[in-house]
């Protein structure tokens, strides 16, 4: 089947093929009519085609038609498609002329009716064939697409599994990044805290270096005087003058202060490092028994730099049983929740940390007095990538990380309203876990 410029299949058939008189008038019909006419007085009457060739007639004995013989055209679609001819020698007269005209009209009408029937049949057949072809084509393309979908369905499960694995890997990477980013922020704060004491420790040590040079200088002079054997008045005066020029009395008094301050500075750094170590539990592997009150304090101590100025941190701790857990992970969790709370409002922030035992579970609540979490978002805030912050201000993974840590320890995390306004994040952790709850 030929196609057009846009690749669509073209119809090649066409209704209304041209037909000659012979095609639309069967000899059986025409000959019978002519025979009857011949008997009725039109002896030898015949039909000729436009070229003058005889088509049908009565008997071979009749003479061939001549140019001047009476004739009437037979029309097919308005076109003379042949003639009815009365050969020379036949009887003539008004009756014959009328009969001839009648015969021509009859044959024209017969041709017309036959043509109409043929055209109807032809068109009907073409249209039905065409419709059938179109149906076949539709059927073919439907079968093809069914086959495609069948194949797709077969591979879909495999593809879904592959993509799910890809997504879980990507998710795990993002969660890891989120943890790293959280620690990174902490590191920046801690670096700032360490920098302060480090600065004055360094400055003090420089000053002490200068003082030490002067002490060494005066000691060298004393040494020389003593080695020369005498302590003359002159020597004593010289030494005193030199001591005064070195301002040894003042620096002796200052050196003590400097050393004390320096030691304080190094002690601060040591404590920060100890806090960090305590916070991260870097030396521990796997689970260790932990007092979560103490861990919360450890987290708070590394976050001092992040606590907004003027914020009130209220610790309402009740004694907690020691539970086996990964304390480093819990501190990461506390860090995230506290950091959220610290961002709850600019001024007049009040964060209450309440711990206690309720039945066989430890309950820890972090309550802020910020705007709170609308009821319709409460189930969604733990979903990965859900965030109400502006684009670029958070990946929406902070609470997802928290949720993962708590559930890995067999616990739950929920958000509630703080009485008087604000959000309260509540952790509930089993005091004893079954073996099946072992941390992954």
């Amino acid at each position: 089947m030929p196609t057009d410029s846009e690749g669509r299949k073209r119809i090649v058939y066409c209704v209304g093929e041209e037909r000659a008189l012979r095609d639309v008038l069967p000899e059986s019909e025409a000959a019978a009519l002519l025979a009857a006419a011949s008997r009725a007085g039109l002896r030898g009457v015949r039909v000729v085609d436009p070229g003058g060739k005889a088509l049908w007639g009565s008997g071979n004995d009749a003479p061939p038609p001549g140019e001047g013989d009476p004739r009437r055209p037979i029309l097919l679609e308005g076109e003379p498609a042949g003639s009815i001819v009365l050969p020379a020698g036949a009887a003539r007269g008004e009756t014959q002329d009328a009969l001839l005209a009648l015969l021509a009209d009859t044959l024209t009408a017969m041709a017309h009716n036959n043509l109409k029937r043929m055209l109807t049949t032809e068109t009907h057949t073409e249209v039905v064939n065409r419709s059938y072809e179109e149906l076949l084509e539709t059927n073919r393309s439907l079968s093809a697409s069914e086959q495609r979908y069948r194949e797709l369905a077969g591979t879909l499960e495999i593809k879904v599994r592959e993509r799910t694995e890809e997504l879980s890997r990507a998710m795990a990477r993002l969660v890891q990044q989120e943890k790293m980013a959280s620690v990174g922020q902490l590191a920046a704060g801690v670096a700032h805290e360490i920098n302060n004491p480090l600065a004055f420790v360094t400055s003090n040590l420089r000053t002490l270096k200068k003082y030490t040079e002067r002490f060494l200088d005066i000691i060298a002079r004393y040494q020389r005087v003593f080695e020369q054997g005498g302590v003359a008045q002159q020597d004593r005066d010289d030494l005193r003058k030199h001591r005064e020029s070195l301002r040894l009395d003042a620096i002796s008094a200052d050196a003590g202060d400097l050393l004390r301050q320096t030691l304080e500075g190094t002690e601060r750094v040591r404590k920060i490092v100890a806090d960090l170590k305590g916070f991260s539990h870097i030396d521990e592997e796997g689970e260790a028994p932990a007092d979560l009150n103490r861990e919360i304090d450890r987290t708070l101590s590394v976050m001092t730099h992040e606590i907004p100025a003027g914020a009130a941190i209220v610790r309402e701790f009740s004694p907690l049983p020691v539970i086996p857990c990964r304390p480093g992970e819990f501190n990461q969790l506390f860090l995230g929740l506290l950091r959220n709370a610290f961002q709850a409002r600019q001024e007049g922030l009040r964060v209450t940390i309440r711990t206690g035992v309720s039945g066989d579970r430890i309950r820890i609540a972090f309550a802020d007095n910020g705007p709170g979490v609308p009821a319709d978002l409460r189930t969604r805030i733990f979903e990965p990538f859900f965030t109400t912050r502006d684009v670029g201000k958070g990946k929406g993974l902070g609470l997802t990380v928290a949720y993962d840590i708590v559930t890995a320890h067999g616990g739950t995390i929920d958000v509630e309203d703080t009485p008087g306004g604000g959000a309260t994040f509540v952790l509930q952790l089993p005091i004893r876990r079954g073996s099946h709850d072992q941390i992954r």
Partner: protein
Amino acid sequence: MIEYDSEEQRMVLKFVYYGPALSGKTTNLLRLHDLLAKEGRGDLMVLDTKDDRTIFFDLLPFFLVAPSGLKIKVKVYTVPGQVQHDATRKAVLQRADGVAFIADSRRSEAKNNAESFGNLERNLSIVGIDIDKLPLVIQYNKRDLPDILPEEEIRRAWGPTGFPVLLSSALEGWGVVETFRALAERAYDALDRRHDFGGTHGLTRESFAERLVRRAG
């Protein structure tokens, strides 16, 4: 063109009356049949099989002979306007030499006119006819009815296309012969370019049109 036989000096042309259902295509042909002289045309053939609705169209044939002896048959068809007869429409439209698009002037029919014209464009493309090269005239029929689109509105809408637009009332019998004549003249121009009607066959635009639209005495 259905056929051109240079040996036999015969040519068969096809004109198609296209348009939405009940816009007056058959009435146009009936009127032409009544208004034009019997000489040079055949009888109107109305093909409407009552039970099987796959076929529903009309055919009015014309016949003329050019001074050169070239016999020209012009077959004027209508297509069924009903949506479900698209296969018949495509079959009839095949190898058309000219199309008269018969639109219904009533405001309420504007959507049907547009859909039918869209169908014409699509089917022309399917049967491989370039609408920009096809002799095409537009007839706004049923001007005798109330609530019809005003002429200025029609001319404004069709002006940019360059297709001749004629107004008619096939029921009252006016505008019908003019439409047919306009179509014949447009078709002549296209055929003259391809077959040198004027030169080789001594057939002028005027005489071609005159012979087709000879009015009954």
